[in-house]
């Protein structure tokens, strides 16, 4: 077991290093092809060349390798690695703000969004998947199948836009009309996120985000539950005289929860994408929005650091899931 863990850890570290290098190389290529983002530092103004050179030096963008297209820029890469090791994630080109600080502020917001969306996804998938499994091949089953596919077909951004521009406002007005303009519940359906009500205004975006990927998750639950229905231990439970409801809730549901959790782990990257879109539209100052704006504005440090964070998280989640599998299924450890 120990050797397996170490092996997976090393693999993960190697992948992380490669991802870092890939990101760095892409950014270097972009600078070589499209020109130096150091100009961003000056905002709307045209700097004279001396000032530009100064800024380039400040951001390590002055290495001559940036002039040659295709040069992988190893020296700046090593510099960046050293900086990361020291905890220095660089500063932004606009406004000269510390990237590490920005991340520290924005990650908790994204985590909150995640929490709500994953809980929603799991709950909905379990409920609908079980229902569909119980009434296999009958109307309810087809309804769930068709319904979840339909919901999945609507892009996340469209759901958010429609909610934000067409539904949120009348709903908010209605709720405030009943409970008063100052009530906490009046903040629930607001069209954009408000920093002063971080929990209330993140509930609906989280719920809506949780519907993305519903179809495959529901199908998974249904399949695993169907497997369990015919499993031996269920038959034993029935034979013992346990009520159908108890068997369903206690044994089947718990067992089908495992593949769901591992599915979330493997689909993490996908869920992350939905979060980025959601944050962009609902103005949630989380990591997604940070990355979104940084991509559009070629903020080198933020882009690389964000992707590294994403890589670390995805790799960590995959590692945990793999380890859990190894714990549960001895066959894998010795593969």
């Amino acid at each position: 077991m120990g050797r397996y863990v170490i092996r997976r850890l090393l693999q993960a570290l190697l992948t992380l290093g490669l991802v870092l290098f890939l990101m760095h190389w892409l950014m270097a290529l972009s600078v070589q092809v499209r020109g130096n983002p150091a100009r961003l530092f000056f905002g709307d103004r045209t700097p004279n060349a001396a000032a530009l050179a100064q800024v380039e030096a400040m951001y390590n963008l002055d290495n001559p390798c940036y002039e040659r297209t295709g040069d992988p820029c190893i020296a700046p890469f090593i510099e960046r690695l050293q900086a990361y090791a020291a905890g220095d994630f660089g500063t932004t080109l606009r406004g000269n703000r510390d990237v590490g600080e920005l991340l520290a502020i924005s990650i908790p917001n994204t985590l909150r969004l995640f929490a709500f969306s994953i809980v929603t996804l799991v709950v909905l998938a379990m409920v609908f998947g079980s229902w569909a499994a119980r009434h296999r091949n009958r109307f309810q089953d087809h309804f769930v199948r068709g319904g979840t596919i339909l919901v999945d077909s609507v892009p996340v951004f469209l759901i958010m836009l429609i909610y934000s521009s067409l539904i949120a406002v009348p709903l908010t007005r209605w709720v405030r009309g009943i409970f008063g303009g100052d009530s906490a519940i009046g903040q629930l359906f607001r069209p954009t996120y408000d920093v002063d009500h971080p929990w209330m205004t993140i509930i609906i975006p989280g719920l809506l985000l949780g519907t993305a990927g519903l179809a495959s998750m529901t199908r998974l639950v249904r399949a695993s539950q169907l497997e369990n229905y015919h499993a031996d231990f269920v038959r034993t439970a029935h034979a013992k005289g346990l009520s159908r409801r108890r068997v369903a809730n206690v044994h089947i549901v718990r067992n089908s929860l495992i593949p769901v959790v591992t599915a979330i782990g493997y689909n993490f990257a996908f869920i992350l994408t939905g979060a980025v879109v959601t944050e962009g539209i609902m103005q949630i100052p989380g990591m997604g929005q940070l990355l979104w704006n940084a991509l559009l504005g070629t903020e080198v440090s933020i882009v690389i650091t964000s992707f590294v964070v994403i890589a670390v998280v995805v790799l960590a989640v995959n590692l945990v899931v793999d380890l859990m599998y190894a714990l549960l299924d001895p066959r894998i450890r010795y593969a």
Partner: protein
Amino acid sequence: MKRIRTAAAVCAAAALALTACTGDPNDVGDGGGDGGGTVDMQIGEVPTLVVSDCDDSECYRIVKNIYDGLVYYDNETGEPINLVAEAITSEDNQTWTITIKEGLQFQNGEPVDAEAFIRSWNNTAYGPNVAGLNYFFGRFQGYAEMNPAPLPEDQWADPEVPEFPEPEADTLSGVTAIDDLTIEVKLTQQFSGFATMLGYAAFLPMAEECLADLEACMWNPIGNGPFMLEGEYDPEAGASAVRWEDYEGGMPAKIDKVNWHPYLGESDCWNDFKTGDIDVCSPRAADFETAMADPELTERLVSQPGTTFTALGFPLWMEEWQDVNLRRAFSTAIDREAVLTVIGQARGVPADGFIPESIFGGGTGSCEYCEYDPEEAKRLLEEAGGWPEGEVFELWYNESADNQTLFRAVGDSIKETLGIEYELVPLDWPEFLTARDEHTVEGPFRYAWGPDYNLNENFLTPVYGGGEAMNVFGYASPEFDAAILAADQAPTLEEAVPLYAEAEKLIADAMPAAPVLYSSDNVFYSEDVENVVLNPIYVAPGGDCELREITVVQ
């Protein structure tokens, strides 16, 4: 039974708890007497709050409330009124004497005196500081010594990076403090509009504490105006400013507090305005149409002609575009009404000249070729020799959803009339600026200009002047330069204005750009506020008003 009762009790408790949870920071209707209350405003991306770099509408939106300048433009007439200045006089329009009111202070206790202005101006004018508003001091004596030209190319260490010699001076020789409260300014030439120019951000004072630590000052400036920032400004989360209790200046605020909520990217304040969480908002085209259909909402609309104009600039350094008939053909081919229909009727009015009406000296209607006439356009195109078969023209602009819509409409219009296909070339802002400045643009491009100060000269000299290399069109004309010079030297402002208008006519004839639209300022305000006034020179896009005038309904 018992179970149901407990459930009901739990639900009831929860409901009570929810309704009891107030804590809405929107303290509307607070404060007794006259004044008080909090206002929620929207804001875009703020790059910095340092006075010397504040050439951006979002930065200025905050800075104009935290600082008081020498003059302020009147909300109705746009005329400059003395604010911090006691008097601004000159005998010959070349040497000016500015006296400052006594007893004014910065928010940290430092005095607002001649030194306060001089140190700020020297800081901005000093070349190596690369201040955004540096060029405003071009008229001052001593500017050239602080901004040397680059060394000859063979002296550069790196052939790509220009090098500059050390500036000979780090202070403006033309600016001296006669005494604590009097400044004498010597200009390189006569300029009757000097007093008017002083209303702009470049001429604001700075505290010593601010200059000593510019990094801190970038997000937490020390001002002398009626509002004081409550802590640092955060470009992502916004900030609040409270009324400065010890303000002694001439234009105090009436509210207690203002909150700025940033809307970055493509989102806007309209949805939050509808729920009452934003007090002043300018909706985009679609929402504007719906709002106009609501009679109750239109009662809370402030609409007035704006002071910005948008034009299609022509790259005069390109051979194809040097025939004036071609440029006139393109201008006549643009159906400006149609463009407005596409982007939203309320957004503006078709431009008929090069300077908007609400600018002092503007509204002359000088543009002959701004009237849509498809026959005339085709005729002019023929006179110019036609357009090569199969080739497209490119429209260059800085990327944004609004610009894309505008330029698609313009391109469609030209295509329908002249039958020439087009391509869109959107660039991001810094790239676009570089391309325009370095004359590497390859087709007609977007040009928009808003007033720094309220004078028609401001729409002429900085835009078309300076010779071929200095303006984005590559336009050079000795007649134009002479006309401007003559106007600069006029003995009074009243006499200068029509002379500037003469220069405008020269531009209309040469057509380095085709004006498309003049802007309109439209703002809706919520039921919680009153006295929403828009200053034509100072108003920022997206939803803004005079924060010194606005009051909260009790």
